[in-house]
């Protein structure tokens, strides 16, 4: 290996051909699930972002195809149930999904076919990480990428509850949680995410968050000139902004895009769990571990049941959470 990979500026450019060392190191991690006092990195990586311009998206699913190929997943060949979404939902083997909505604009009475690429938003303030009771199962890098470290995952499903966007999916095979990694393995060697690389219309673009915001503003101006007065950027402040964000023609109504949350924020319960993980995190871990022992060596998915949720909530209400940073 010769030099260190550059930090990627775009997904469209071709990758370097010489072997290069990873530029996304364990020391670049800024937050770790169920772990306090994470030593802060000496360097700050440039914040990256993937911009999904819904107005340029043609719903071709090249992103889904690239995602399957790059991550080498094997989603099932399902049935057609009368919709264009295939698979029908995100799965442990399908980290991104085109969602199609037929929406009649009440102002113009014209049909609009809203097509949105769904997947992990890589929140600046990640609810999954905050909710996760397993030390080291979820990490956040200083460039903004939120990644799951599967060897540490206990499959409890708290990340699902913690996610305001309903993204992670628990595998019934290995009982681990899966979602988009923002192709952290590609970004580490100077490439953009596979989906952005494959996108034929550059509806998906990747680069520094700053550049992507500038590009998004440019796109919003174009949409406004075409009569989309409410065009705008979806980079929700409720989760501290996201490293995957959208340009929407109707930014005043995110939920028309197949239920994109209007004002996403981490559930107060989960916000509280952070305290749990700090003071009594291992107690929660203990619940899972005992559960495992009783039901016999992970014979079932390690789901959080209602009782466990109640227990956690009680802990939260006891006022032990500090709501502060990790």
């Amino acid at each position, binding site marked *: 290996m010769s030099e260190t990979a550059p930090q990627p500026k775009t997904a469209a450019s071709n990758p370097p051909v010489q072997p290069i060392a990873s530029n996304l190191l364990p020391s670049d991690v800024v937050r770790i699930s169920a772990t306090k006092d994470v030593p802060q990195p000496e360097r700050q990586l440039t914040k990256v972002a993937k911009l999904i311009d819904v107005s340029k998206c*043609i719903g071709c699913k090249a992103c889904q195809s690239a995602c399957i190929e790059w991550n080498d997943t094997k989603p099932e060949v399902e049935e057609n149930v009368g919709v264009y979404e295939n698979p029908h939902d995100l799965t442990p083997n*399908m980290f991104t999904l085109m969602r199609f909505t037929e929406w009649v604009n009440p102002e113009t009475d014209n049909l609009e076919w809203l097509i949105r690429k769904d997947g992990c938003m890589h929140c600046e303030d990640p609810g999954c990480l905050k909710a996760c009771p397993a030390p080291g199962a979820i990490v956040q890098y200083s460039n903004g990428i939120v990644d799951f470290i599967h060897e540490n995952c206990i499959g409890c499903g708290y990340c699902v509850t913690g996610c305001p966007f309903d993204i992670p999916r628990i595998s019934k095979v290995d009982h681990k949680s899966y979602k988009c990694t923002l192709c952290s393995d590609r970004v580490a060697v100077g490439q953009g995410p596979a989906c952005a690389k494959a996108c034929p219309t550059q509806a998906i673009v990747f680069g520094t968050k700053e550049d992507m915001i500038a590009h998004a503003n440019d796109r919003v101006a174009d949409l406004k000139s075409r009569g989309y007065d409410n065009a705008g950027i979806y980079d929700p402040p409720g989760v501290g902004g996201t490293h995957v964000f959208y340009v929407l023609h109707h930014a005043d109504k995110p939920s028309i895009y197949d239920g994109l949350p209007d004002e996403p924020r981490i559930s107060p319960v989960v916000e509280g769990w952070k305290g749990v993980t700090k003071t009594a995190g291992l107690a929660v871990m203990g619940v899972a571990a005992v559960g495992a022992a009783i039901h016999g060596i992970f014979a079932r998915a390690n789901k959080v049941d209602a009782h466990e949720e109640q227990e956690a909530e009680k802990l939260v209400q006891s006022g032990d959470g500090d709501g502060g940073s990790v």
Partner: protein
Amino acid sequence: MTNSWTDIKNTDLVIVMGGNAAEAHPCGFKWVTEAKHHRGAKLIVVDPRYTRTASVSDFYAPIRPGSDIAFLMGAIRWMIENDKVQWDYVRNYTNASFLVKDEFGWSDGLFTGYDEEKRDYDKSSWDYKMGPDGFVQTDPTLQDPRCVWNLLKAHVDAYTPEFVERICGTPKDKFLTICEMIGECSTPTKTMTSMYALGWTQHSKGAQNIRGMAMLQLILGNIGVRGGGMNALRGHSNIQGLTDIGLMSNLIPGYLNIPTEMEADWATYMSTRGFKPIVPGQTSYWQNYSKFMVSFMKAMWGDAATAENDWAYHYLPKLDVPAYDGMRMFELMNHGKVNLYFCQGFNPLLSFPNRGKMTEAFSKLKMLVIMDPLATETAHFWQNHGIYNDVDSAAIQTEVLELPTTCFAEDEGALVNSGRWLQWHWAGATPPGEAKHDTWIMAQIFLRVKKLYQEEGGVFPDPILNLTWDYADPGEPMPDELAREMNGRALRTVYDLKDTTKVVAEAGQQLANFGQYRDDGSTMGGCWIYGGSWTEDGNMMARRDNNDPDDTGAFLNWSFAWPANRRILYNRASCDLQGKPWDPSRKIIEWTGEKWEGYDVPDIPVTAKPGEVHPFIMNPEGVSRLFSRGMMRDGPFPTHMEPFEAPIANVFNPKMRGNPVARVFESDAEKFAAIGDPEFPCVATSYRLTEHFHYWTKHNPVNAVLQPEFFVEISEELAAERGIERGGRVRVWSKRGEVWAKALVTKRIRPMQIDGKTVHVIGIPLHWGFMGAARKGFGPNSLSSQVGDANVETPEFKAFMVNIEPSAEEPVA
């Protein structure tokens, strides 16, 4: 395409009609998004369905499948009525001022000369008035009632916005909005591009659909300019190459013709191919026909083709019918008149209409040879797959041989894209198993057949025994050898035509361009339009320099575009009469006072002064044709014709069925539903989906995941009427067959009001069969009617009549 994919970024308005570019050509569609993003271009979509292209459009309007001519003639009428005409262009670069014979006319949906018995026209009246000097008579003032412009005006008069709404089902206000948007492009500084595909070709009058838009583009002055043109989006990565190379029974590479049996000798054949200019001083490029033809014959038969034997003209087959197109072949096969069928890269069991007839025809063969990288349905037509291929295997005696071939990624060579670019590619993978290159298979067969003739003789073995076969390994011609042969080379010293002492090429050298082709036997060349693709300087198709001076989108040093590396055809028409660009900000070429130069290869002799030679040098008129004389079988102007199966009769002439000159075989005619047949009330149309490529990608698990199962698309209204639920199972049937599918109930298809009648449209995507990774299903060809375009025999896949009902359970065979 007259232009190229990269040129689409230069446009102000994209109209996608007769295609679904975002869905079927997603990578090329990026240039539309470029135009929208960087030029503020608008996108119009006219389609029976609200498609994925429509989802990113600025304006959408619905249209009934098979009614496009009415829409287009309506648009032309609106342009003329509202003076949205680029007059300088129309007067000088079209045949608007040419006078037409007094006998020519149109009434009751038919042009003069119709013979019902022969289902053909006597086209003698569809021509210009010629003067005694041999040149056409014109009226530059456009006052003469017999000039093309006035005849066109009269011809389109019936196509009012109300008429368009009545026939097409397009709401009048939407039609008028589109006309206004198009009309803005009649100024010299605004251009529209037309992107179309099989949505226009797969009709019994497909060629006339395209003529209609070409005429509109000429009236707007949009042909030959940047961001304009008629841009056919080719459906395979190399289907342009297929037509270029002449892989049709009636063509010779480079759009030359196989002789007919009426042309028994060379002199007769050439007598109708002089293409003498019919306006004074004009260049008529097809006058070089003999150079291209003789060089082709030399490429085929080398020393055996001589001036004395008319270049071995007697070796060429002579057609007894216009063409042995696919439908004719399967008709013959079905009559037991074909014993052996070679199916190379072709899956007709799913891709040709009336599948039932295909199965029957294949069952009558003695032997079927399949050359394909995939296990196709055609190769397994004899195998029972329940309802998905319900055949009695024991009753089929056809012997099937499968010869596995390599696919494009395992092969080297050039693919010709829609923009006529020959892009060389290199093998990216090693062929699996026993797969062999097609060239190896063909060569091995040829060498064996040749040996048989050598040893055993035959009735007329000469064309086979004398075929040029000059390859390093006769058993496997290499792609570079074949490419060099297609470019052409000098067989002996080639001299300049004017300065006959000047040497152009020495014997053995590659020719630099088709201008060096000769008809004296001194050159050979397999495909004249590819002249210049592999010169003494090497493989021009492998060039990958993406410099683009002034961002014109021409990319002259990237690959090679035929003809002559020209990126925009007719580009002389991008300048006014003095040779200045209509739009200085979109210059392609201009007249410097001495010659033509600019960013593209000029489509005119470089020293031809403006005003002396007109821009359309491939036509003996020197101008483009609003009136196409007798060039097309079904009329010099497009006229509204219903599909062969239609919900209403032709309002011009209720007795007229479909295209009155389209060829219909008797057995196929019996399988047409009656006009307005209540048993088949719904209009069906077929199309591709982005997730798949034809019947190939269902073999790939990833594509199968993304679109796993056959479905049909119907409106919420039709679903409610028939009690069909979203995702429910339905049966769809026509007079030719039936299929079962999942129902996709959508707002993107709406019922239409056609001539006072509610008409439902059913969308039937292709892509599913009984082989591969996806779920078993059907193709639209189980249902569609077997009739083709009157000029080129492209099957009418885009409009036929069906019925639909809920089907609760999976039926058993």
